[in-house]
């Protein structure tokens, strides 16, 4: 690991905080609105994992591609998906980014490079390769990021995608958000590798394992992987070790996670830690950070209101967008 090569400056750190704050506020707001019954959807909380997309978000450009998963709203927001498009979508409204057809597991926002969101474990990876191939074919320096979970590293698509990316030298970055659980199953019970990053060796691919709660380490890893990809040197596997503070899906009380394990994880909550660090490093004051947080809450108020005021699609819309017009 050579995270020392890439060290974020103050403004970058602040930008990462800004993203983390947005993601955290959005997650909390989502759960709150679901609890009130005003949103009905399967919701996969990413609380605890905010540092990863925050770092990714400041390193990637709008033109870079992202393929993410059901637990990926943090990834999309960090990549630039507007709050209003998100909220209207998860409310199933016409002003949603997918006109309400996709929902929380299938968001797309081409403008910000959010190309695919999948509900099928492992499926983000082979598709990201295709986007990376496109970039390679066009001689562009765009990279394609696939995010996925630790348990997803046990499915065939992971293996096939990493091997292909390596032999084709694709600018794909595989980002494993290792939250140590896959649904109700503990890491060790399903995953034979000590570290997901160890698996990169099977593809002669660099594998970087970083603290997924430390935006600064993450920033270094993303910079390194992105630089390699943009330089045409091929793919990288990044394992970001973190934790999932909520159940697998909203309504799951995660009773299967030992209390001590959960408590220890929460004690390493990336959000308050990074917040305190910015103040300690005099990058921002308490007031400045509070102002950021308040601004996010205001944006969320607006987005939620916008979404719930947006109309539902007409019933006939169920049958459109199945096929395009033949030229």
């Amino acid at each position: 690991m050579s995270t020392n090569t890439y060290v974020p400056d103050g403004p970058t750190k602040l930008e990462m905080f800004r993203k983390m704050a947005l993601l955290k506020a959005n997650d909390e707001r989502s759960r709150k609105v679901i609890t009130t019954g005003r949103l009905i959807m399967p919701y996969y909380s990413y609380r605890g994992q905010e540092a990863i997309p925050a770092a990714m978000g400041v390193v990637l450009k709008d033109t870079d591609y992202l393929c993410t998963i059901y637990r990926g709203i943090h990834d999309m927001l960090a990549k630039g998906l507007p709050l209003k498009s998100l909220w209207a979508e998860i409310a199933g409204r016409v002003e949603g980014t997918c006109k309400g057809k996709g929902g929380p597991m299938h968001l797309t926002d081409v403008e910000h490079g959010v190309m695919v969101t999948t509900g099928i474990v492992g499926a983000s990876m082979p598709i990201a390769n295709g986007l990376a191939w496109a970039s390679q074919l066009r001689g562009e320096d765009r990279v394609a990021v696939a995010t996925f979970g630790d348990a997803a590293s046990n499915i065939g698509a992971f293996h096939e995608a990493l091997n292909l990316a390596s032999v084709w030298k694709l600018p794909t970055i595989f980002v494993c958000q290792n939250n140590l659980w896959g649904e109700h199953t503990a890491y060790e019970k399903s995953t034979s590798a000590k570290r997901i990053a160890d698996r990169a060796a099977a593809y002669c691919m660099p594998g970087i394992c970083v603290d997924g709660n430390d935006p600064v380490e993450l920033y270094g890893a993303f910079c390194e992987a992105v630089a390699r990809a943009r330089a045409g040197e091929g793919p990288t596997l990044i394992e970001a070790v973190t934790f999932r503070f909520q159940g697998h899906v909203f309504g799951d009380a995660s009773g299967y996670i030992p209390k001590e394990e959960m408590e220890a994880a929460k004690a390493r909550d990336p959000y308050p830690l990074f917040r305190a660090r910015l103040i300690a490093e005099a990058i921002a004051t308490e007031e400045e950070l509070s102002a950021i947080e308040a601004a996010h809450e205001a944006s969320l108020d607006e987005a939620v209101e916008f979404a719930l005021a947006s109309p539902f699609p007409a019933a006939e819309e169920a049958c459109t967008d199945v096929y395009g017009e033949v030229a």
Partner: protein
Amino acid sequence: MSAQITVLQAYNQALSDAMSDDDQVLVLGEDIADPEEGGVVGLTKGLSTKFGELRVRTTPISEEAIIGAAVGASLVGFRPVAEIMLMNFTTVAMDMIVNHAAKLRYMSGGQTHCPLVIRTMTGAGMSTGGQHSDYYEAWFAHTPGMKVVCPSTTEDAYGLLRSAIDDPDPVMVVENMPIYWTKGPKPEAGHRVPLGKANILSPGTDITIVSYSRTVLEALGALQAISGAGVSAEIIDLRTVQPWDQEAVLASVEKTGRLLIAHEAVVPFGCGAEIAAVVQDQLFGKLKAPVKRLGASFNPVPFSKPLETAHMTDAAKIAAAAIALVKGE
């Protein structure tokens, strides 16, 4: 009223009883053991505690490996019940199901066979969107070597799953998720519903309505509107889609002269087509009206609630179609 349990409990009870009765019965799948709370909906709760984690085994997220393990164990006499959490995830295990489980008896010239069960849940109506609620039963019904059952009640859930476990060949049990929490009579221990036998739920004379899985409940829900329109409908729960009960369906349609088939899968190339094709052939000249089909509209399952509702087959659509067919509109 006799004791009531949920459909989910009926499946759980069937697994538990089958494992007690025969120590060759195994259960495997993601999250299914008790440390993992017996699965995402708790359907297998209690089994690993009772029968041990070697017989009730939580797997990695590796559907090919899951079905592969079931195939291998079944070849030497075990009766594995593999869970593929959602029917959409059968897409990552198709090779093991179609090229292996379904074919090994044949390709080995009868030396081996695969007495395994694949349980999988699905069904629209829960706002899970495009990749979590499809019905693919037609694919498996089109596969020689496979059997497919689609229970709709507590007793069928229990009795069909028990028969599936008894069966010497691979059986897919398609479980409807939205009706897991519907209650019904508690099945007797050891109850069996033979594969391939339909259930006539309500006798009638003007039209036969054939359905299976959750849509059966919609058909029953349509009965009042239908009889309110002066139409007498015979409702048949097919229960097994492969092999399906031609005898029962033909006998009923011979009597009523009209057939409406309703399922949750999309209509084109769905199971309704096969039933229509056989009935128009066998009862040529005896039908009073064309065989009609109802199913989901031909598109992926939409997320937005009004779209999801528009997409689905419900009691109102069944009633309207049945009445129109009889009244000749």
